[in-house]
């Protein structure tokens, strides 16, 4: 995907020089609320030069998006912007009507976070591209179409002629984001603002989009503003970095300097969150202590198939969510399951706990096969098998208080406890997950996401289970909260000798919590390895791609990583490729890969399903 080296020397003076495409001076944004004005952005001053990329980083609520929405007059109705933002000679603040529309889309293109909801659903991609071309470039219908096709090619959309006729819902997430970028670039703006353009995408697609942005930057002098909460995402693209917190700009400088020697403690904190976790404490987590006990959980050849109902009179399509997955977990061990959306990892979690019925295979917990248990027996067994869900608030009954939610497992399994004893247990459970006792009377909608997840953990832990399944427990939380929850889970595990099945798409978190990692792709297991070995020397081509896609907060390394990113879209689970399901994206795919899925080979504690891994090693 082309060269990604910055075209402007990083040492270029970033003050209000003549070359600045955008210069912002003392810009503030405030919102009027019933409780008085809320200051979202305070006195921000910065500039972006032609051909340069400015990375703006900060956590949610830091005002980083509002700053740029204000320049385009896109603030909510109760928002006010003061100060100055100049695009060349044009003052943007206070611009309205047709004058504003000669800037929006023409001189500044904008790309938003969620490409599904940010493209107009009832207009084809071609129509939305042509609209900009005809309005701002005055092109005729035929010329606009030809140009639109060229634009899609430029952002590496496969089969552009056909995409023009398609609606947003017919495209994959990555394609949609490419189309969004093409539309933003249609009128050849001088500045492209991308607001969290990769946040809602899978990690490999995220890398593709970042690589595309790195490639586009500087072509025809295009300046780029990349807004993100993840410092590492900036590393391969941005020339300079601006760090925002609580509406103020706290640090700005060339990307290498800021990433290597951050001046502000908060920047250091952000860098820590995004970089790889501290070195694995091998001693604390070698499975040796538990190894003697044999497998506590054993999953054999598990398969889950759904039937996707067709329309009236049309046959149902079978969907294999999970195929032939086997794994073993010793007591006290912690296994990570990773994979992107559609990999079947949540299905696996639910099938293991028999929250949904498997179509084939067996799940054995402590010598008892779950599928053969009758419902009362299974319900009694559930006190040992608990789960934490992805959506902290969605998994809590909105009509129950925190105390009632945590108390429920006791009412089910500890019938002998009286109300006072239950209250005492609930109080202990709250304290253990770090929640104030005062929260006991609250309802879920009165909690923050982090508090909600703590309540979920308290509910799961109140019966002292032996197996805890975590289904993406931190994905819905922001970075600092993620960190707290992960360390809470680590503590609980150490204190209680929990067996952990930890499902996540976030490899850094898995690396911190788990001893072994299983990689899933399209419902199949492709590789199993001890965490340290997987991260150091992945064997399966997909594991390699997955690891390579994780952005690294190092401006010297990341550009080359982005330049090596491979194109390719994940296939639909409804229509998986023949043979090895990964072969359509695999650089090493050979003829034999198309015939049948490779056998699972296991040796020395590592497992892999690939015909060619030995040659590639």
């Amino acid at each position: 995907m082309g060269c990604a080296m910055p075209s402007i020397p990083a040492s270029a003076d970033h003050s209000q020089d003549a070359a600045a495409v955008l210069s912002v001076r003392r810009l503030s944004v405030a919102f009027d609320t019933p409780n008085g004005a809320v200051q979202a952005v305070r006195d921000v001053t910065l500039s972006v030069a032609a051909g340069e990329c400015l990375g703006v980083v900060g956590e949610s609520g830091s005002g980083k998006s509002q700053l740029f929405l204000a320049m385009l007059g896109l603030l909510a109705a109760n928002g006010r912007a003061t100060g100055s933002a100049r695009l060349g000679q044009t003052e943007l603040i206070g611009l309205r009507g047709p004058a504003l529309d000669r800037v929006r889309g023409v001189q500044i293109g904008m790309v938003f976070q969620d490409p599904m909801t940010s493209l107009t659903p009832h207009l084809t991609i071609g129509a939305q591209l042509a609209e900009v071309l005809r309005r701002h470039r005055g092109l005729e219908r035929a010329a606009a179409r030809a140009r639109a096709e060229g634009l899609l090619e430029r952002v590496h959309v496969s089969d552009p002629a056909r995409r023009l006729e398609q609606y947003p819902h017919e495209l994959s997430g990555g394609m949609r984001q490419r189309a969004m970028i093409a539309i933003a670039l249609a009128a050849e703006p001088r500045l492209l603002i991308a607001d969290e353009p990769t946040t809602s995408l899978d990690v490999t697609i995220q890398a593709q989009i970042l690589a595309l942005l790195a490639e586009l930057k500087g072509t025809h002098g295009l300046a780029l503003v990349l807004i993100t909460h993840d410092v590492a995402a900036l590393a391969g693209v941005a020339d300079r970095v601006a760090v925002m917190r609580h509406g103020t700009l706290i640090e700005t400088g060339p990307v290498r300097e800021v990433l290597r020697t951050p001046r502000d403690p908060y920047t250091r904190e952000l860098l820590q969150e995004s970089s790889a976790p501290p070195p694995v404490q091998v001693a604390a987590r070698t499975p040796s202590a538990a190894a003697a006990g044999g497998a506590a959980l054993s999953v054999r050849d598990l398969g889950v198939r759904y039937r996707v109902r067709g329309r009236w009179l049309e046959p149902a399509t079978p969907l294999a969510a999970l195929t032939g997955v086997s794994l073993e977990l010793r007591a006290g061990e912690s296994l990570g399951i990773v994979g992107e959306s559609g990999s079947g990892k949540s299905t696996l979690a639910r099938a293991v706990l028999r929250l949904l019925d498997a179509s084939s295979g067996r799940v054995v917990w402590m010598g008892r096969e779950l599928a053969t248990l009758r419902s009362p027996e299974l319900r009694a067994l559930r006190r040992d098998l608990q789960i934490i869900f992805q959506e902290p608030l969605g998994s809590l009954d909105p009509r129950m208080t925190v105390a009632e939610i945590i108390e429920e497992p006791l009412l089910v399994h500890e019938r002998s406890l009286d109300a006072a004893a239950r209250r005492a247990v609930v109080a202990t459970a709250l304290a253990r997950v770090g929640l104030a006792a005062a929260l006991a009377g609250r309802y879920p909608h009165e909690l923050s996401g982090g508090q909600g997840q703590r309540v979920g953990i308290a509910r799961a832990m109140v019966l002292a289970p032996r197996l805890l399944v975590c289904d993406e427990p931190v994905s819905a939380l922001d970075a600092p909260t993620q960190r707290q929850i992960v360390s809470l889970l680590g503590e609980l595990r150490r204190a209680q000798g929990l067996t952990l099945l930890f499902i996540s798409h976030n490899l850094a978190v898995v690396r911190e919590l788990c001893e072994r990692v299983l990689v899933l792709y399209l419902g199949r297991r492709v590789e199993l390895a001890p965490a340290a070995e997987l991260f150091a020397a992945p064997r399966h081509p997909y594991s390699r791609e997955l690891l390579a896609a994780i952005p690294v907060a190092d401006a010297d390394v990341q550009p080359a990583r982005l330049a090596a990113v491979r194109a390719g879209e994940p296939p639909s689970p409804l229509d998986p490729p023949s043979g090895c399901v990964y072969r359509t994206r695999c650089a090493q795919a050979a003829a034999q890969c198309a015939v049948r899925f490779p056998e699972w080979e296991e040796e020395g504690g590592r497992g892999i399903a690939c015909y060619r891994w030995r040659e590639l090693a």
Partner: protein
Amino acid sequence: MDESTIASRGLWGDALVRLRHDRAASVALALLGFLALAALIAPLLSPWRYDSLDWQHLASPPGIADAHWLGTDRLGRDLLVRTLHGLRLSLLLAGLASGVSLLIGVLWGAAAGLSGGRIDGAMMRFVDVLYSLPYLFVVIILTTLFPRGSLAVLALALAAVGWLTTARIVRAQTLALKRREFLEAARATGAAPARILWHHIVPNVVGPVVVYGTLIVPQMILFESFLSFLGLGVQEPQASLGNLIYAGAQEMESAPWMVLVPATALVLLLLCLNVLGDGLRDAFDPRER
């Protein structure tokens, strides 16, 4: 069940507070209370009964003469008393019909939503077919099944139409609930199906159903008046807002008050109920929080 009462106190308490802040809804509630009270104690207010004829004052306009404050009809019957009588009848019928239709609708919708699959498909297809009939057919056909003017039959006929929407709402609600993770969480806890139903599903369905119930009442009042207007509902000498308006419309040119009095009462009643229903819906809507 102490825990469920705590939960509902939270829910209802919250809603009540929000309702009190809604000025339009509060006014509507007060006015509605006044109308209902007036309808209840109507016989005490006036020396006249709804069917007593006053031959001295045939079709007399509103005035203070002889306690016919809002005038009389062609037979000298007091319009105020008859209107209040109709009001009481409307409220009674609407309450009855709403109750029955809510009951059927909740059971049908919950059963369909919970069973899912083919059973759900068949049950909702049935609702769809009935829905595609102009609802009036069903009511007209049912009212003609039995002697005209029987209140119980009228209530049943109204309910026969009203339950369709309730069933759809409850089913949608149940399906949405089934997808929510907190039910899965309860299953993962090991809670038995009965516990899940009573402690998780019912409390979460009750709110929307109660709110919908307050919106169904004005619809039922409208239906009833409508049927009485067409001569299919309440029969003379019984008074209903519908047949009063119909009778009044015939005398419009010479005695406009005969249509204006019951029409105003009906509009006022519907207005209050609709505003109150909207207010309740907002008060219960978690998005408003």
